[in-house]
């Protein structure tokens, strides 16, 4: 490894640390800026909203007080907080006392990750291919006429697309289920029936995310391709008599994709934000719905846990993308 590359990796790692630090600190500081202590406030609100059920508030409160040392000075609390996080202790749910927040997150995470990964991958590849075709000089009028639709789709938030999709495909046509991750009566097994059920439930949420994103990738790719096709090396490749398809893929798309990958890294945050809301609309059993239920029930430690999980896992993912980037763009490796 040379110094240039080392510097690059170090900068990116620094960014990862900043994100994690900001996320943890925001999570720690904001609840404590309010009068009273966080457990007191959270429990009072829980009580007021009637969400506590038959939980013994005093016992919970005392347990938390002792457990998190809320009478200790603030800097010590902050250090304790970090210690808990590093041992993956995210606290205990108020509403489902005494279930651990980490357990709840662990059961929701696979749903979210799969949905988001598949949808983003489809949107990214379909959009990029479409955008590249749009930029090609021989693109026909037919394909060009979809540009306005792409623009409209890009500008509508995709959780609103989700509502429209539910209405047409689940309420009017009744082709697909309107909500949930699987049939409520289904016993989860590793067989075709279960898989089909999961796929049927995942289709509409996935479509909402894909439709909402595909235009962004197509329009981005189109403008990148237009730039790349103006470069001298394309003219040179044409002059050499290379086959147009070869120029299109290896000289055009390959270079235009670099900017797309950068955009992917930058836009994942907003994609995740949107996907959280899509899950809420579909009542999909992922992190988004967990967050929504926790907000509704003022389940403080669950909210904190999910938020932290979202931020940190995305930061780690971006770090990995950043590490892969030099493989795509040899100029960074130099």
């Amino acid at each position: 490894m040379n110094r240039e590359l080392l510097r690059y990796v170090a900068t990116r790692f620094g960014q990862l640390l900043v994100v994690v630090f900001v996320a943890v600190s925001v999570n720690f500081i904001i609840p404590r800026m309010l009068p009273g202590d966080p457990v007191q406030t959270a429990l009072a609100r829980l009580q007021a909203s009637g969400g506590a059920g038959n939980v013994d508030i005093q016992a919970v409160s005392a347990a938390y007080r002792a457990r998190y040392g809320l009478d200790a000075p603030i800097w010590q609390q902050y250090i304790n907080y970090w210690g808990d996080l590093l041992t993956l202790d995210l606290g205990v749910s108020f509403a489902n006392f005494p279930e651990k927040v980490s357990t709840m997150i662990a059961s929701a995470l696979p749903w979210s990750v799969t949905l988001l990964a598949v949808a983003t991958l489809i949107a990214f590849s379909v959009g990029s291919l479409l955008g590249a075709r749009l930029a090609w000089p021989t693109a026909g009028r037919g394909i060009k006429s979809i540009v306005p639709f792409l623009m409209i789709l890009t500008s509508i938030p995709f959780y609103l697309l989700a509502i429209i999709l539910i209405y047409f495909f689940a309420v009017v046509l009744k082709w697909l289920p309107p909500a949930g991750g699987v049939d409520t009566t289904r016993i989860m097994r590793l067989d075709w029936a279960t898989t089909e059920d999961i796929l049927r439930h995942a289709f509409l949420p996935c479509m909402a995310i894909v439709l909402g994103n595909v235009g962004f990738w197509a329009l981005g790719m189109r403008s990148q391709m237009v730039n790349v096709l103006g470069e001298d090396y394309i003219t040179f490749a044409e002059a050499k008599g290379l086959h147009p398809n070869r120029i299109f893929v290896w000289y055009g798309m390959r270079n235009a994709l670099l900017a797309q990958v950068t955009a992917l890294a930058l836009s994942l945050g907003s994609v995740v934000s949107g996907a959280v809301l899509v899950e809420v609309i579909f009542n999909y059993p992922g992190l988004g719905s967990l967050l929504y239920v926790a907000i509704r029930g003022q389940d403080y430690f669950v909210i904190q846990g999910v938020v932290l999980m979202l931020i940190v896992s995305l930061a780690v993912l971006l770090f990995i993308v950043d590490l892969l980037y030099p493989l795509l763009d040899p100029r960074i490796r130099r």
Partner: protein
Amino acid sequence: MNRFWANLKRNYEQGRISPLLIVGLSILLAIVLFGLIGPFFTDVTHAQVGAVRPRKPPGPDYLLGTDSQGRDMWTLLIYATPNTLKMGLIAGFIGVGFGTALGLIAGQFGGWIDAVIRVISDSLLTVPAIAILVIIAGNIDRMTTFVMALVVASLGWMFTARTVRAQVLTIREKAYVEVARVNGEGAWEILFREVMPNIMPYIVASFVGTVSGSILAVIGLEALGLGALEEMTLGNTIYWSQQSAAVLRGYWWWWAPPIVVIAMIFIGLFLTSVGFDRFANPRLARR
């Protein structure tokens, strides 16, 4: 005034004012007028809970039907739209103002200040905004539309800061800045007399983007039930329709109109920003 029109006409003939910009601005203008003129023809009390008969489909009595809390949807829409736009504009002004200040400082002074601002803004750009906003909004006791705009603005400055910083760095190297420096202008004079006027187009462009992003975030938070629930906004309308399962029960007139207005706002802002890019960058116009 004549010169203004002449300028406008020349720009249009040179192709700098694209149809996209005109369409985008017209859509936005129409939405603003809808919210400004509408109240003169409607009675605000019809948008209060229980004012009219609930769950009526659109008809001669109720133009867009009524929701299950007994509110007239048409009236609700007229009062909700300006509130949502207002939040976007306030958040846009604050976010862009703060971002511009940070971008100027980072670009002009460089060094460790620049490094700190750059790392923080780059890092925050990649964070899913909703996660941090949920924590902030969830801890506010009495939410109002103004506080909501402040909350959203807290994560609405990074893009502007980045753009402004990059532009300052480019412009600083231009010959006319060098001339100004040799003529004895100080750092602040250069910043405000030479650099600022040249980055104005970029600031306006980021403003459009920031307003759009802020409205998106506001509606998202409201859809989660974290908004100022007693105020009439488009996001709250979506939230209440979700709470009453309006989609599954087939009350399309409850959720479809706010979605259409929201979509129009975003399409208008999107076209304006694309069109404005061509206005500010004449090189793009020729393509």
